[in-house]
């Protein structure tokens, strides 16, 4: 808050800027500089040019990783949206005391360590795991399903992690809708299905889109869950970047892959800020 007295006391044009300098220096040196240096290496190593980018798209292994990453992020977003919508809907209208319990469950899972949750899914989904045992006991399948070390495992684990990120913004949007609008539609003779499809869904679309974009972009950059549940044969983009740099020491190619991830991420966030500001994103992929 800027008051008249502040203007008299400190007429300098850069008032207050000094306070930001320590953080600015830290970020400039340890955040902006290294990221730019990495991107520079993608066009200078092993020689100047765009050959690293050409290699990423031309080599079938790398192209497949890119395709898998976008595929999994898309499928995860779709499932999170389909499963999250009913929960957000009921959460927006259910009595307070129940809503508090559901919120507690959502927050508990969100605040549980990511590695711990992923470890749980590794054990639950393995061949001799609880899920397969239950499926066999009910006679639905005759032999264990391959649920881990493939993209199915990655998708299950990721949907689990992303659900809260879609339920919370969607819940906020649904709560803000005036029920009178739906009553008006009913008075005008619309049936339930028609009200749902032509009033409720369009009115909740901004929250759904904001949440879906956030989940999509977080899924693109996720490292831990895909690496552990997907196994080495089903790498995703973040895992590939880590491997190119840490194991193969290919800084040029790794930098190029990082630049692609960075560009897509920032582009989607810009889109989100431009069109759905208000329901802002929270966390980058882990």
């Amino acid at each position, binding site marked *: 808050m800027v008051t008249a007295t502040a203007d008299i006391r400190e007429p300098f044009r850069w008032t207050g800027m000094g306070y930001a300098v320590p953080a600015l220096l830290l970020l400039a040196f340890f955040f902006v500089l290294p990221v730019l240096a990495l991107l520079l290496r993608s066009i200078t190593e092993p020689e100047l040019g765009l050959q690293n980018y050409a290699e990423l798209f031309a080599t079938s292994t790398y192209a497949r990783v890119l395709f898998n990453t976008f595929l999994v992020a898309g499928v995860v977003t779709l499932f999170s949206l389909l499963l999250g919508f009913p929960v957000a809907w009921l959460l927006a209208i259910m009595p307070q005391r129940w809503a508090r319990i559901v919120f507690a469950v959502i927050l*508990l899972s969100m605040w*549980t360590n990511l*590695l711990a949750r992923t470890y749980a899914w590794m054990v639950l989904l393995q061949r001799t795991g609880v899920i397969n045992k239950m499926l066999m006991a009910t006679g639905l399948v005759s032999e264990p399903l391959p649920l881990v070390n493939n993209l199915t495992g990655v998708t299950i684990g990721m949907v689990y992690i992303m659900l809260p990120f879609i339920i919370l913004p969607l819940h906020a949007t649904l709560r803000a809708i005036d029920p009178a609008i739906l009553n008006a539609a009913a008075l005008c003779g619309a049936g339930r299905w028609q009200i749902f499809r032509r009033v409720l869904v369009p009115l909740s679309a901004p929250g759904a889109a904001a949440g879906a974009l956030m989940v999509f972009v977080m899924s693109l950059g996720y490292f831990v869950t895909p690496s552990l549940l997907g196994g080495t044969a089903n790498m995703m983009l973040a895992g590939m970047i*880590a491997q190119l740099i840490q194991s193969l020491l290919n800084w040029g190619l790794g930098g190029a892959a990082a630049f692609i991830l960075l560009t897509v991420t920032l582009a989607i966030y810009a889109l989100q800020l431009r069109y759905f500001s208000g329901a802002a994103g929270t966390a980058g992929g882990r």
Partner: protein
Amino acid sequence: MLLSYDRLGGLRFGLWAITIAICLFLLLPVLFIAALSFGSSQWLVFPPPAWTWRWYGELFADPRWLAAAWTSLKVGALVTICSVVLGLLASFALVRGKFPGRLWLKALFLTPMVLPVVVFAVALYALFLRIGLSGTLIGFVIAHTILAFPFAVISITNALETFDKSIEDAAILCGASPWLAKWKVTLPAIRLGLFSAALFSFLISWDEVVVAIFMASPTLQTLPVRIWGALRQDLTPVIAAASTILVVLTLILMAVAGLVRKVFAK
């Protein structure tokens, strides 16, 4: 009618069924790890044939796990201090400051939150290899402070925006120096924001794994890095015990936070 709980009719049961299923889906892994950590089966048979403290015993008998936990606590504490101090200063600039490019500065301060962590991790890894900070405690603290900083900025700017600056000005008019006025008037008034900033900063460092994998050396590891390393070898129940401890500490902190908020709000 679709947004009225009492008039949902049959649909209400459908929505409840899905909600309960999703809640179980969200709860299942958390409860499952805790159960596994007390199960006697080395091969993670579930339900376990018997209950035991054995895995916690093995965990606490292994100096590598203890060293990792100690590193995590040290890094977390240092990150909390750095991130809150930097966040407080930066928030003064963002909320009170009047200079061109203020919104751009805020955008820059929040970027570490949206940038894919793996990109930041490999970029910082390259720099640290060059300047010799790889595998050091300072390296961990710098890396985690950058990740925690945006959350501190959000918590503290929110608190500072709702604080009426004229109260601080009144203290100055009554003879306090600008620093004393900030120390005695402003900081106590925004203590809830500072507390949230500290809590988030600690938890982000405590739970962070991606950057930590790149910063760690065989001799200096945080708890999540140790779990990560163990996970890539086998799925021993000791990991379940370590995970349970991670989760329990987080829950204790959240519970304390809830209490503190209640006390502060009075």
